[in-house]
């Protein structure tokens, strides 16, 4: 069996919310992630989908080591992310690239595109100084941008262009894993399609492992072979894209699909009932308050993500029958 490149073992992430004012100092805890289990194989393309606030960004930041897990473990290969030594951390920085949701904000506004792209190459000593311009130009070419842009500053590029530059920078260090947060949201349909095609081709050609956050199920199914659905900080269903879209087994996934979002609209389940606050999660299943299939047991037991069939996991006590 292949060894996973990332494994998350019951990862939890809580934020302390400090009370405002002198009399409400008592701090409360917000559970942004709760019992997240995930195995990512080399070459996987995984879409993280879920409503706003479900913890997608938090999950990806934990996998990048930008934030520590409050509980549970995040493994990169065999090693715990929080215990990497300097050498391993440098390797991690090279092998795992992140494309920010705010592509423009992730680039130094005082640097030219040329220098932005050259930085990771220089950093990891990937080529001789004399070969650098050629290499940078090749990168830009690979994402379909003219070399005329090399002398520009980030603020002088359009939204589509800057996202391509962000992709080019992610590719610069020849990574094995690319993570991207909402990398096509807010773009024109045609530009979005171009960027998606680019990402898809890159992953196919170079065998790059991709983790892609999106609130667009269409994008998810186009780009990724697997989907993980998050609800209130937990992955509630995970499996191959086709299987999930055709036969959702978790009532929440089903509700999501029934309200199949119009293009570029935030994902929203068509359900009545309040979404509980992540500050005080209800006892039992976190979806019980909105679940049409809820039964008495659901309010007692919190279902964890368990295998249903090969490659398919669901966190539900009474999964929807297949077909």
């Amino acid at each position, binding site marked *: 069996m292949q060894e996973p490149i990332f494994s998350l073992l019951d990862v939890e992430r809580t934020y302390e919310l400090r009370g405002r004012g002198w009399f409400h100092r008592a701090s409360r805890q917000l559970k942004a992630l709760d019992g997240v289990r995930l195995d990512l194989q080399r070459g996987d393309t995984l879409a993280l989908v879920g409503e706003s606030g479900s913890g997608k960004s938090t999950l990806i930041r934990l996998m990048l080591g930008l934030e520590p897990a409050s509980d549970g473990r995040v493994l990169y290969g065999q090693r715990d992310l929080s215990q990497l030594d300097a050498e391993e951390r440098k390797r991690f920085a090279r092998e795992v690239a992140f494309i920010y949701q705010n592509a423009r904000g992730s680039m130094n506004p*005082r640097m030219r595109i040329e220098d932005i792209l050259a930085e990771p190459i220089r950093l990891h000593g990937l080529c001789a100084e004399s070969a650098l311009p050629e290499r940078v130009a090749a990168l830009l070419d690979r994402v379909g941008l003219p070399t005329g842009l090399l002398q520009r500053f980030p603020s002088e590029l359009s939204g589509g262009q800057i996202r391509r530059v962000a992709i080019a920078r992610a590719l610069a260090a020849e990574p094995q894993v690319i993570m991207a947060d909402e990398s096509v949201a807010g773009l*024109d349909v045609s530009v979005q399609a171009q960027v998606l095609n680019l990402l898809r081709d890159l992953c196919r050609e170079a065998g790059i492992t991709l983790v892609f956050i999106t609130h667009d199920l269409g994008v998810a199914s186009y780009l990724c072979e697997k989907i993980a659905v998050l609800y209130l900080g937990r992955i509630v269903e995970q499996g191959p894209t086709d299987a999930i879209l055709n036969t959702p087994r978790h009532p929440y996934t089903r509700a999501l699909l029934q309200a199949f979002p119009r293009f570029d609209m935030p994902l929203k389940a068509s359900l009545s009932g309040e979404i509980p606050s992540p500050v005080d999660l209800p006892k039992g299943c976190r979806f019980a308050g909105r679940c049409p299939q809820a039964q008495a047991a659901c309010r007692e037991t919190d279902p964890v993500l368990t295998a249903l069939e090969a490659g398919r996991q669901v966190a539900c006590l009474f999964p929807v029958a297949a077909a």
Partner: protein
Amino acid sequence: MRDALNIPAPPDSQWKRRFVQPLLRQRSAMLGLAIIALYVFAAVFAPWLATHDPTAQDLMASLQGPSAAHWLGTDSYGQDLYSRLLYGAQLALIIGFASVALGLAVGVAIGLAAGLMGGRTEWVLMRIVDGLLAFPELILAMAFMAVLGLGTENVVYALALSFVGPFARMTRGDVLQVKNQPYIEAARLMGVTTAAIIWRHVLPNVVSPILVQAGMRVSIAILLESGLSFLGIGVVPPTPDWGLMIAEGRAFITMAPWISGVPGVALAILLVALNLLGDGLRDAFDPTTQKDA
């Protein structure tokens, strides 16, 4: 949306486009720059332009109005005002720029350390800065002069010290803001070392407001220096200094108004020019006037 992927690179250099051209568009700034250039010229070539030794006294020729021998007249010691004016420009510009440069270097270092290190270091440094900022610049400079004693060099140190606070506070504020920008985190994620992050990503993004501030401070420095000398706690006579010259002419203001008037007008024009340039620099560098979609 603008997404023509084939826009050719603009012909002229970006540096010009971002900094020089916006500045050129500021008419008043250009006027200020021209006047300052004139002062700098006068200061640099003072030894050749002057008609007399600026400190040569000739009591026989005291309190004379403008004439062929003394173009702008003489003061109560018979010193040539035109020559003193030229050397005075030299002194004013040197003190102005030197004190600002020194204050900037120390202040920016403190601000960087406080903003980047945080914690206890920041707390201690900022309490010191608060102490410096509690007094108006003139009072602070006077206090330092009282401690350091009279003299040109001490004026520079006193003024520099009074500028450390503003530069430190401003740098820290900007560093704190830049530190939390996504591109800093992105650089760290790519494995860029801390030193390189400070040098390549933090400094270039805090430097332009600091330089604009420095430009404005030069005029404050020159005004303060003249004020100190006017009050008799700055440079010592007979150094050709505008503040001193104005003070000396005070007693003869009805008899020989040119003694105070000549350096006074020279000072006023220089200050206006420096402020015009400073405002122009601010407008040219201000991120809100540059497009930043």
